[in-house]
């Protein structure tokens, strides 16, 4: 099984080299004429003002938290989805393969509805 992943590691090395080579080539072949104006942050021609690391909307943070919850949920459901048909074919009781996951999903859906009602998904 592990040897199936050997091409993946080779590909990872190739992909990394493939991503770095153009940067290096560009650095070697391109001109290098630094200029304080050219190297200053781009702000549509205005003098850059204040720090760029400004405060940002807390909703981005909220989206990140929601994403972690939902993505974990997906990660939990993947193995279940893969074995579902086999378990039904082997005659497992529908409650074990269906009911348990539906309870799990119901918990998520209740949380989802609460988020929706609280306005966590609004962007106005």
């Amino acid at each position, binding site marked *: 099984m592990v040897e199936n992943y050997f091409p993946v590691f080779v590909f990872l090395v190739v*992909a990394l080299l493939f991503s770095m080579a*153009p940067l290096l080539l560009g650095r070697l072949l391109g*001109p290098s*004429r630094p200029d304080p104006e050219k190297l200053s*942050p781009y702000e549509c021609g205005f003098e*850059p003002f204040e720090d760029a690391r400004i405060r940002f909307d807390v909703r981005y943070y909220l*989206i990140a938290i929601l994403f972690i919850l939902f993505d974990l949920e997906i990660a939990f459901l*993947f193995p279940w989805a*893969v074995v579902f048909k086999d378990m039904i074919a082997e005659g497992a009781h529908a409650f074990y393969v269906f009911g348990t996951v539906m309870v799990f999903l119901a918990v998520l859906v209740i949380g989802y509805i609460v988020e929706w009602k609280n306005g966590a998904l609004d962007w106005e």
Partner: protein
Amino acid sequence: MMEATWQTLATWFGPTWPAVWVLLKIIALLIPLMLAVAYLTFAERKVIGYMQVRIGPNRVGPKGWLQPIADALKLLFKEVIFPTQANKGLYVIGPIMALTPALLAWVAIPFGENTWIANLNAGVLFVLAVTSLEVYGVIIAGWASNSKYPFLGAMRASAQMVSYEVAMGFGLISVLLVAGSLNFIDIVHSQAQGRFAEMGLGFLSWNWLPLLPLAVVYFISGVAETNRAPFDVVEGESEIVAGHMVEYSGMAFALFFLAEYANMILVSFLTSIFFFGGWLSPVGFLPDGLHWLLIKAAVFLFLFLWFRATFPRFRYDHIMRLGWKVFVPITLIWLFVVTVWLLSPLSIWR
């Protein structure tokens, strides 16, 4: 003839042959992929040109066919700027983190029954995990630039990408349910079974028909995930110039571009494999083959370009509403429907 050549090569390289063989396969994938990326930019300009009653680029080479080569050469000889305020290390890692996962995901994609580089039994999980890494390229680039437009662009991009990843993931669970496997080849095989496939109407037994809402959600999420129009607020040039790419120039900028187009092609291939039968022939009397996969992917790539020429850009709050309040409920409801369908006597996936 071919067999004999491989034999001689294998004896030449001795014990290093497996590694060399893998390397050859990788090169055989990367060169067409890079050509496809280059000519996709050309196709985009041509297609959008004709849709806007222009003829598009036609100066470099016969009918403009050397345009992408000229573009690449131009970018190669442009200065790579390192802004004074940028965090140098992260600034370099940004584009590399964008392109490497975009290429790495291709290792698991099968192109036919026996044509693949790595036949992973958890292929879907691998591709999902690797494509999730792309968001880091955007965030790192936006943060390291230490400039306002890239920072805002990166925040928007990452929130948008993760939101649509949720919809994509939930959509895929139903595909896995009906296929019963995480392996791409098994997923394609599962679509070759059923009443319609036996009647010689294979295209009616592919996943797109029973999972129609998910196929639509998956492809639209793919468009949003790659930050393409009409979901391209990330680089909404009228608001935040080019988002996280503002401070990048020359080849560093080209890497983001390559990553975006490689991802477009990847999403087209994945949609074809998950919902449209991969390399399976749509009708019984024609043989299966790689050409079917390429045709299907080309159709989806054309859709990408068509979307860009047709739809006005979404507003950011509309994008987030579509992702969280429309797509997530649709995929959850269809997940429930598919599960009940599989348990019922009417199940078509036995």
